[in-house]
């Protein structure tokens, strides 16, 4: 049965994050008028990397259950987007990534005080990616770069849980047809199944947000529909987790999110007994 391989240090999986850093990302996200798309995707990516690190965290270390690539695309280039000590590296282990953020900020969030009110709590927030917006949108080039990275990785880990590619973008590719490049990425696979390609679409168009839809009907524009078509269906176990989180799912549900939060994706990954509070 596909998508059942154990994820462990001996048998890791792989994440490739593709982040759109083109000039159009400077525009505000639809409906908000406040947040800009490049800030939204940088924040989403930092939270994804944070939650992935925490998922693998143990005392004094993060276990290398995943190898991670972050590809930035904008202008004429598509290449490694991590900075600091990780600059220029295509793939890094999640343990190294966790230990090498650009900085760790301290942010304040509201938490329940146990008496019906809220109190401020200061939490650590690691930052790996800064908002960036520049030039054209070479999405096909980024997909091809992902394909090359994954082909080499799969040759090394042929029995692993299949890699996941997550593209964070406004969808305005201008270096060719991303459907074809995406298809080539999805044709790659391990013994456990095909590579999963998911998309987070942050758009200025507005309209209703969508999380893991099973149809392109209702999506507001051609960019959204193209990204939906590029996205892999969620494997059955991920559909189950999505359903547990309250999303409406069917066998056609795709790994696609429109102007909403995709960080819950990390909770779809199994690395062992889940920590669910009972008391």
């Amino acid at each position, binding site marked *: 049965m596909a998508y059942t391989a154990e994820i*462990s240090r001996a048998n890791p999986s792989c994440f490739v994050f593709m982040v759109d850093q083109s000039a159009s990302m400077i525009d505000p996200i639809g409906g908000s008028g406040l947040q800009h798309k490049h800030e939204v995707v940088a924040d989403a990516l930092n939270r994804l990397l*944070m939650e992935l690190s925490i998922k693998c965290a143990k*005392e004094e270390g993060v276990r290398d259950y995943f190898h991670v690539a972050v590809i930035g695309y904008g202008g004429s280039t598509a290449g490694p987007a991590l900075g600091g000590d990780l600059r220029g590296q295509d793939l890094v282990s999640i343990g190294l990534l966790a230990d090498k953020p650009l900085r*760790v900020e301290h942010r304040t969030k509201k938490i329940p005080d146990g008496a019906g009110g809220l109190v401020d709590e200061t939490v650590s927030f690691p930052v790996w990616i800064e908002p960036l917006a520049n030039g054209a949108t070479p999405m096909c080039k980024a997909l091809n770069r992902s394909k090359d990275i994954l082909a080499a990785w799969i040759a090394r880990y042929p029995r692993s849980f299949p890699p996941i590619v997550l593209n964070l973008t406004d969808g305005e590719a201008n270096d060719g047809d991303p459907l074809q490049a995406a298809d080539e990425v999805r044709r790659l696979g391990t013994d456990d199944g095909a590579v999963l390609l998911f998309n987070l679409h942050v758009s200025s168009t507005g309209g209703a947000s969508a999380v893991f839809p099973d149809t392109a009907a209702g999506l507001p524009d051609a960019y959204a529909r193209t990204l939906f078509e590029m996205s892999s269906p969620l494997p059955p176990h991920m559909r189950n987790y999505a359903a547990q989180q309250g999303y409406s799912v069917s066998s056609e549900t795709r790994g696609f999110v429109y102007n909403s939060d995709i960080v819950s994706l990390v909770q779809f990954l199994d*690395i062992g*007994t889940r920590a*669910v*509070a*009972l*008391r």
Partner: protein
Amino acid sequence: MRGSIFSYSASKHGNSPDEYEDAWCISPPILADADEIAGESIRVSVADGASESPFAARWAHMLVGKFSAAPLAALQNVTDLLGVLDAIGADWPHAMESYAASRTLSGRPLKWYEERVIGRGAFATLLAAELTLPVSPTSCSPDHDEGYWYAVSIGDTCMFQIRDDNLLGAFPAIPSAEFGNNPALVGSNHTDREFLPAHTLMHSGSVAQGDDFFVCTDALALWFTEQVERGCKPWTVLRDLQAIGFAEWLDGTRRAGDLRNDDVTLIHVDLW
């Protein structure tokens, strides 16, 4: 009535021994496997720390340590159980503060990801069982007194009782299809006072001469259950692990794909 206890444990394949996140405690303690059980009753406590919970091994150790000394009533009614868990939960923040302070003192302060999750608490399954051994008839007391057991379970750590070469019962009785990655767990933080009782199982039964009890964390419990569902008698193998060699058997069973790769704990109480 005489008996022996054998304990077996191993970390997940690919992990080092110090990454084992189950915990177990036998009270009164046995000095060595196969030593005769001292006293009239024994308490076996086993906890399985949740993989996604960074401090799970500490929490599992704390749970089994406290439950080895908890009143029997904590295994018999939910009110007393909650009282014990409340006390352990109250100790947990102090334990973590001490741990954080010790890290700072040693020049290795908590990393950002540890700081992020330390407040989320830790999680583990728990099974605690007390076995009171039957008394053999003597010339002074010719009647044969039956022994009894009480147990509490939260999650998928299981106890199997064998009598006359048959499975007398499993506690909790979980069909193989229902083992998964989302068992009920005991958390270190107080959140929902109603949820835990809803996921707590308590049971009791008799103890007789010749019985075997096997307490297993989930991977082994699943293997045991699957074997039984196929009409096999897995206890015949587990009884002979001293002779077969636990490490060899575990390695072969994992490689055959018959046992999920996870930490494994087995406590075998053998009453002769």
